[in-house]
């Protein structure tokens, strides 16, 4: 299920021109990408995740609805698929067979910032049953609920049992960990799935984001998922911090608060205020880099009122200086969220440029 698509929609022509002019004999594979404008086709329903390797200029598109759990190969963290609203609830019992419903259970979601220590399954224990909401498909249909229990782990396998809440369709599987950073597993299809490409710097993906009030703040009137803790999917750019990607952010309007009012001051700003052209490698250090996976995150995108119109403001005045997995420095900014053949939302376009000393 892995597609490699190279989309050079727009190469900064001068750089390309000089590159070819200087040395025609150099094999292209040896050369790193000096800059490009790319459109990541996530789809209007955010059905695909797009992994980006900046130095190769390669985008890899992966369908979202293929896995639920991802096991860290060299550690104990377990991620859930935040791109389709997978959620975890912990029953009071430790007896797997006693778990028959999710009534009165509170679901939790992986933190949208990609922090491995803030996943829904952070601090998980063997032989503790969990209830998992398998999330939604591309049309928002619920995919169902299962229960699972991790019975044992070794450095190469995770032993997991899972079943429907009524106990039917019980499976007992030893998931073999693969050679990447994470091993992705589908409880729906009972198989491991290849998701992440070998080399990537950032991924454009949907993440589950809470809208409205947190249930904790509402006391007894809280009905999770109904009047609080409602999660929706939102496009985000998550960096591969696991492999050391860091980001310095230049935001000329960092003092302005984000706002969905089209008339708000921040929504009046344009690309003309961008420092993209001036920023160099030294600014990476001056500004200070963050190793947070959501250092880019959703900061470049703002939906405007009325939300039903689906009009987004792209904060193209923000420039991100990215140190990629290979140690190259790139400056990057988002230009549009709408794009593709039918000019739809879910097709973020960004441009980036290699920074040299």
């Amino acid at each position, binding site marked *: 299920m892995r597609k490699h698509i190279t989309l050079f929609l727009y190469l900064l022509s001068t750089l390309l021109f000089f590159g070819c002019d200087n040395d025609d004999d150099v094999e292209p594979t040896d050369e790193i990408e000096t800059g490009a*404008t790319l*459109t990541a086709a996530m789809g209007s329903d955010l059905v695909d995740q797009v992994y980006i390797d900046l130095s190769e200029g390669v985008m890899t598109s992966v369908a979202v609805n293929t896995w639920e759990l991802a096991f860290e190969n060299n550690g104990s963290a377990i991620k859930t698929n935040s791109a389709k609203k997978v959620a975890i609830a912990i029953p009071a019992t430790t007896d797997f067979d006693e778990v028959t419903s999710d009534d009165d259970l509170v679901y939790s979601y992986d933190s949208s910032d990609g922090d491995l220590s803030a996943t829904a399954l952070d601090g998980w224990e063997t032989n503790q049953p969990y209830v998992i909401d398998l999330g939604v498909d591309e*049309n*928002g249909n619920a995919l169902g609920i299962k229960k699972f229990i991790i019975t044992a782990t070794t450095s190469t396998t995770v032993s997991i049992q899972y079943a429907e809440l009524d106990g039917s369709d019980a499976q007992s599987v030893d998931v073999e960990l693969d050679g990447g950073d994470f091993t992705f597993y589908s409880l729906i299809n009972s198989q491991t799935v290849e998701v992440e490409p070998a080399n990537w710097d950032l991924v454009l993906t949907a993440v589950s984001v809470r809208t409205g009030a947190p249930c904790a703040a509402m006391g007894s009137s809280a009905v999770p998922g109904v009047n609080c803790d409602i999660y929706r999917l939102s496009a985000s750019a998550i960096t591969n911090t696991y492999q050391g990607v860091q980001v310095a952010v230049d935001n000329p309007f960092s003092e302005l608060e984000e706002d969905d009012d089209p008339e708000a001051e921040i929504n009046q700003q344009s690309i003309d205020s961008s420092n993209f052209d001036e920023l160099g490698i030294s600014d990476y250090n001056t500004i200070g880099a963050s190793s947070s996976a959501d250092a880019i995150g959703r900061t470049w995108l703002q939906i405007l009122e*009325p939300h*039903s119109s689906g009009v987004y403001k792209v904060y193209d005045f923000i420039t991100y200086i990215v140190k990629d997995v290979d140690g190259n420095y790139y400056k990057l900014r988002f230009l549009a969220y709408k*794009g593709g053949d039918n*000019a739809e939302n879910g097709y973020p376009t960004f441009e980036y440029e290699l920074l040299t000393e």
Partner: protein
Amino acid sequence: MNFMKVNNALSGLWTRKVLMIVCFILTVCVLKVSAQEYTIVTVLSAQDKAPLVGVTLHTFDESKKNGWLTDTEGKAYLAITEPIKITISYIGYLTVEKEIVPGESTEIKLEEDVLGLDEVVVTGSFTPTTSSQSLHKVKKIDAAMIEAKGSVNLADLLQTQLNLKIIQDDVLGSRVVMQGISGPNVKILIDGVPVVNGSGGNFDLSQFNMNNVERVEIVEGPLSVQYGTNALAGTINIITKSYQENESLVSTSAYYESVGQYNVDLALAKGWKNLSISAGGGRNDFDGYSSTGERSEDWIPRTQYLANAKIKYHFKSLDITGSFDQMWQNSTSHGEASSAFNSKTSKLSQIADDHYFNTSRFNGALIVNGALADKHYINIVNGVSKYNQSKQKYLQDVVDDIKWLSTEVSDHDTTGFVTWTSRGTYVYGNTKKNSGIYLTAGYELSNNTAEGGKIRSDADVNVNDYGLFTALEIPIGTRLKIQPALRYTYSNKYDTKEINFLDSKLPILPSLNLKYNINQNLDFRFSYGQGYRTPSVRELYYEFIDANHYIVGNTELQPEIGHNFNFSSSWRTAIGSGTSVSISPSVFLTSIDNKIELVRIIDRETLPEDVPKNVPVARTYANIKNFKSIGFNLNGEIISNNGIRLNPGFGVLSRSGSESDNEFYTSYELNLNASYFIKPIEVKFNIFYKYNGKITEFAKDEDGEIGILTLEQYNTLDFSLSKSLLKGKVFTSLGAKNLFNVTDISLVGDGSKGLVTQTGRESYYPISWGRTFFIKINYTIH
């Protein structure tokens, strides 16, 4: 010239001349053969005492059939030996009955029919009748009014009418709300032929052009016995122009309105003995209007092409009419452009979604009406009405001005609706004299189909209604007329027995009409009608699904059953010399069970799997348990012979039902139509004013809480003046519309449905496109 009487011409002049000649010959013959004594009847105009020439006098009693015409001195010579009762009628004047005693010369003064009491109306009655004789209260808007208002289409014309509201939607157009009841419950007829409604389930009144219209008749309340399904809230009958035998003309007109409307039309008519043929066409161009200056317009730009033709053949005492009218409309709904990366040019740009609509409307009719023999009248109406709309979505790069077709299949579709109707009516009665018992029997067949992209592919799209009806008009004494009527209804889709007439389990719809004349100047009308409407093809099988919409029909819908009571009175009097006053109060009550409305789908989990749960617009049709509207209207009319005419009106409308737990929401209306004809310069000034009070829509949400949405009050005022030049060859009208410059009116509240359900707009409603100026010039050669 007094153009308020354009229709009065009817068969007027020509018939009068011929009859006059005949009468003179007869008179001469009579004079020669007999040396009898004559009783002289002199007919004068009540206003200026001038003799009226060619007035028809005929005997009241059928057995002693006789007739006379007045001569140039307004005198008729009657050779009678015993007292007789005669009817004196003259076009444009009120008909009078009088007893003539032999030997006593009589002078009769005829009042001018300024109130239009003797004007012919056809809607609701089984045979053509007059305004004053009709059992129904028929509101008439004639060609003169259409001209004075500068109305391009039906929406413009009905804008300032009492008890009517026009609601505008950018894509669906202008729809009508009558007696507080919207949409499919209003029936629209063209020359009595039902017209299929359009994409929105409502009629888009802006698709009905006024350039070929002689008058519009409106009857409020159900005419279900006469016209079957749909006619619950009321009926609008558009009467197209008809030309007389031996009449030939070429007429062309041009219209400009400063908002950006440019219309031209041409009409040709040629008449021979017993035959007339007419044809016409036009082009209407509208630039569109956006109150906010945004690219997306509240009134979308459109171009309409119109064509119509009519052939009328007079055979013995029957009229056979074949006609069609066709409209093609190209319109474009522009989207708001927003920042996007253009994959075609690989440039950052501004891209909008634009929807291109091609709409076509066709109405064809074959009508046979007239007397088969004395006292036997028939009216057979066969018609077809077709509506077709195709939509294509383009992506428009507004910076580089390039556009391309969307690759998404669901963005394009073509949908068509067709209605075939055949209605036959036979009336037995003295239709010439409008007296005695009338017995009516008739049938109606209606076949409705739909097909295309917006109709469910598995739909059984034949929704057919069949009806047999009968009515009996009984005069009781000279003052009271009663007409009970029944319609037996059959539908291929629904068990019509649920109508359950008088608990008999019979599918019979009743109506009762009553008219009581206290005297010539005061009458009362009462009507009761039961309405029945089966869900339309659209309401059952509509399917509009794209990235932003999920609007679907509901096959579980139940038919609507309604009851309407209407009580009205009309009082007329003359004040001093030459001023007529009339006052007409009316009250109505309508109650509809199972009213079908478009409602929001609140529980998104009920949407099918392949529909995104977060689709912005999710709607379906549902039955509302009960809906009621109660109203009071007071209309006045003051007409003075110095050229002043005033029509003030006041209306109260209260709406309620199960959606409001029977709490009533009331709104008020006021209007004033006034005109002043200045004879010396032959210019007519017109003013049209309407106050629209706050109107509240109410609906229950999923928790049973009543949400209300209130449209704020506003006033509209139009002004125009009209004049004919070059001996009537040229007729011009010019004026200003919407002098108060009303554009958007705000909506307040948290209601979830009603007037705005279909658009999803929240904070305002586009009412008008602001102040404009218009001029219309018509040139006619006879």
